[in-house]
């Protein structure tokens, strides 16, 4: 699988500027149809790339391959790709959650550790109220899912379009940075402590985070 992706990355450099732009839009659009089988997706992308390279060598135009409406063509391809098995989807989802929790806990643990030893700022334990933590994790996961889905939709929408980089930067920064950031800040500061309290030593955060990352990594390797 990954060898196909690598081969694609290498070969793609042989395309000229225009062909590369349209091919990469095609590639991103098709790859982002995320409930599709990876293997089949990469195989058809390789076929299209090989075909486009031959056309380019013969002095042909990419429209001979993708037609006058490349977005419609990408849709046609996606429409015929087989679905992935739900089991793989589930593994991917669990992997995402594990990465998120792993990075979050490991970095929180590390930062607190550094603050503790470097600046004598923090306490060696962190007090969690279980109710509030549960709400933060649930709302946080929902926010991240919504933002993640929006990123997918946005990138797909932006394929085969010319968008000014500045506008794109402002729009994406607002939607994908400020909005979720505000949600997390609001939860962090305004949610009152609820439910039973639990004292966790800081280094446990780090260790748990590392375990989550390890699980995520194993799931990724297995793929």
């Amino acid at each position, binding site marked *: 699988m990954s060898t196909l992706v690598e*081969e694609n990355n290498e070969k793609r450099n042989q395309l000229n500027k225009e062909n590369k732009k349209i091919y990469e839009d095609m590639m991103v659009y098709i790859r982002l149809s995320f409930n599709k089988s990876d293997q089949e997706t990469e195989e058809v992308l390789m076929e299209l790339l090989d075909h486009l390279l031959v056309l380019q060598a013969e002095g042909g135009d990419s429209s001979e*391959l993708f037609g006058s409406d490349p977005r419609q063509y990408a849709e046609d391809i996606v429409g015929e*790709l087989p679905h992935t098995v739900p089991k793989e989807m589930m593994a991917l989802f669990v992997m995402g959650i594990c990465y998120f929790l792993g990075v979050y806990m490991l970095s929180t643990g590390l930062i607190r550790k550094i603050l503790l030893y470097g600046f004598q700022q923090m306490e060696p334990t962190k007090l969690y109220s279980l109710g509030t933590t549960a709400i933060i994790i649930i709302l946080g996961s929902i926010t991240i899912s919504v933002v993640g889905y929006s990123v997918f939709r946005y990138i797909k929408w932006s394929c085969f379009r010319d968008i000014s980089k500045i506008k794109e930067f402002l729009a994406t920064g607002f939607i994908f940075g400020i909005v979720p950031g505000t949600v997390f800040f609001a939860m962090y500061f305004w949610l009152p402590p609820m439910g039973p309290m639990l004292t966790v030593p800081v280094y446990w955060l780090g260790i748990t985070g590392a375990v989550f990352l390890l699980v995520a990594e194993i799931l990724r390797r297995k793929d």
Partner: protein
Amino acid sequence: MNERSQLLKGILEGCILAIISRETVYGYELAVKLQQQGIDVKEGSIYPLLLRLQKEKLIHGEMKASGSGPNRKYYTLTPAGEASLKAFRENWKALKQPVDQLLDEEDS
């Protein structure tokens, strides 16, 4: 040529099966062979069809190293594909003559 038309898609699928039944081909080769037969379709239109034929298990695609060149996906007919081609051939034969006749009558 209107590529959206279901009728044309069906006929093109039949032609693709016929070519693959004769020899194992990869995508670009197939496009060239269709053109050599005078079947002038957008080259890209074969790829969605190849995907569908694979999904219906009428053809089987396999990535293979091609001698010196790159990995290519070669297509062969499955037994179900053979049967489908046979059915297409019979349907086509049964339709071809009456349709020709009908259209000729209208022309004159």
